[in-house]
């Protein structure tokens, strides 16, 4: 029997949903609003919500002071390459775990996930020392590798869940139809898994884009991405809230736009398998 939903109940649900949504979005909204205030208005008490003098001054200063394009470019390279590299490793790994599992597959999956349970700072020293040894400090290549590695368990898990949803009989049918392993992957598995692969790529890209711990600790100038760009405006010696907000807005804008356009894909990806 379908549950009956009264109009009043529906209104209540909608209101609550919107309230929670706004609550979650509020910090981002506040950041964006603050970026258009003067430094004095940014710290005014009580805070001014909308009735302030809108100004683009902060953006002008931020653009003047730092090389936004270089940070942006680093972010794109680091997030992009680590995602691509991750997928190249994760797709075959997830395929083999999903379709030719061994007795240890479940253990391996759990073990991979367990690496995410360690606080990142716990391995900062060893990784830092390795980076010094290999001359990877402040290099994009080094960050690509580290970000790829820290996100790899999540990509493998997501793809594994997707691949598990593909009925094995379809792949067997392809085998009976004369497809080689390569053809099976290209003509049958990949087209069926594209929605899953796409949302995995997207999520991984967002995670890599926003990753701050490693990017702040392992870069200085050359490889610094947008996270470092934001951090450079949070200084203890002055009032820079408005400029910090402007920098933050500029840093999250690309990913926000990307997320907006792909939200359908992303939501499907994150809830996949929950509802069949």
């Amino acid at each position, binding site marked *: 029997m379908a549950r009956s939903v009264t109009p009043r109940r529906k209104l209540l649900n909608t209101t609550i949903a919107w309230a929670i949504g706004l609550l979650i979005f509020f910090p981002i909204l506040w950041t964006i609003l603050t970026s258009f205030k003067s430094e004095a208005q940014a710290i005014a008490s009580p805070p001014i919500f909308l009735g302030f003098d809108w100004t683009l001054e902060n953006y002008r200063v931020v653009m003047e002071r730092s090389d936004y394009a270089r940070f942006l470019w680093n972010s794109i390279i680091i997030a992009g390459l680590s995602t691509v590299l991750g997928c190249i490793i994760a797709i075959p790994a997830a395929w083999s775990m999903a379709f030719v599992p061994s007795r240890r597959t479940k253990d391996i999956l759990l073990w991979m996930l367990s690496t995410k349970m360690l606080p990142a700072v716990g391995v900062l020293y060893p990784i830092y020392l390795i980076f010094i040894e290999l001359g990877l400090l402040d290099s994009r290549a080094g960050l690509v590798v580290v970000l790829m590695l820290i996100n790899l368990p999540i990509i493998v898990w997501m793809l594994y869940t997707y691949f598990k949803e593909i*009925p094995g*009989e*379809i792949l*067997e*049918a*392809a*085998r*009976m*139809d*004369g*497809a*080689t392993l390569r*053809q099976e992957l290209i*003509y*049958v598995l990949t*087209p*069926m898994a594209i929605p899953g692969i796409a949302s995995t790529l997207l999520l991984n890209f967002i995670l890599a884009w926003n990753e701050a711990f490693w990017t702040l600790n392992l870069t200085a100038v050359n490889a610094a991405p947008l996270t470092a760009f934001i951090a450079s405006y949070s200084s203890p010696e002055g009032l820079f809230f408005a400029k910090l907000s402007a920098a933050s807005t500029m840093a999250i804008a690309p990913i926000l736009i990307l997320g907006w356009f792909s939200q359908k894909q992303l939501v499907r990806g994150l809830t996949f398998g929950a509802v069949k």
Partner: protein
Amino acid sequence: MGQIQLKQVTKSFGDVQVIPPLDLTIQDGEFTVFVGPSGCGKSTLLRLIAGLEDITTGHIEIDGTDATDLVPAKRGLAMVFQSYALYPHMSVRKNIAFPLRMAKMDQAQIDKRVDAAAAVLNLADYIDRKPGQLSGGQRQRVAIGRAIVREPSAFLFDEPLSNLDAALRVGMRMEISELHKKLDTTMIYVTHDQVEAMTMADKIVVLQAGVIEQVGSPLELYRTPRNTFVAGFIGSPKMNLISGEEAAKHDAATIGVRPEHIDVVESGGTWTGTVGVAEHLGSDTFFHIHNTGLAETLTVRAIGDVNLTHGDAIHLNPRMDELHKFDAQGLRIG
């Protein structure tokens, strides 16, 4: 050509042997049905023949050549799966053409064969649709179409009709039988439904726990079941298997008599009992009879509409010439 021979084939999953050593020959052009209860190993056996599972020991020969180590594609067999296993992102045309594309056939030839198959299976109107837009019966036909374009030496069917509703199942059963007559190709068909087995097969292989209980034509199995398992499995409603004193009268541990071989008489009769459930089908009436003095409930099939209902007394005469006798091991005597 499509003769398939299994020689001392075994299959184990880990420590569990699901198929003990097994020998079986399927002749070219034969419609063979593997039948048995769930988990009897019939699907596993089919998958071993297909090459989707590796056999543990033994040999599989197809047309006289050893195919034991060949990959599925090289065995020249086509398979129709229970779930149809169509490629959801491809149109009907592309689904049917897929095996030919894999075989690198040229496009003109592919089109010709696909169109021919679509015509045979009444799929021409749906040729550009995706599987998701088709009904169960149509999907099944696409799966069969994908199998026939390859012109395989044998077809393997893994419970192909079990996802269809009853009416459609009868229709498809006939279509597959007709297809077999038309193509004259070896077909191996797995089912747990003994009616499908009886109506379609040239040869039935009855399996239980990975062991072949009996191989024979439908009527051989019906008339001379080799043991009590086959006796109880083949035929609908099930054969009455009676043990104890009544069986001892016939020098057997168990006697079997089919519901249609027991006559309802006015009075006297070998057995007398009361009617439990009476199922009136119009053409036949099935009686389930208690209080006969036997341990077992008897099932009797009477032709036409016999006017007896719950609680009525009934007199029964089994036909002695249709009596099956089994020894203490359940094997047929004489």
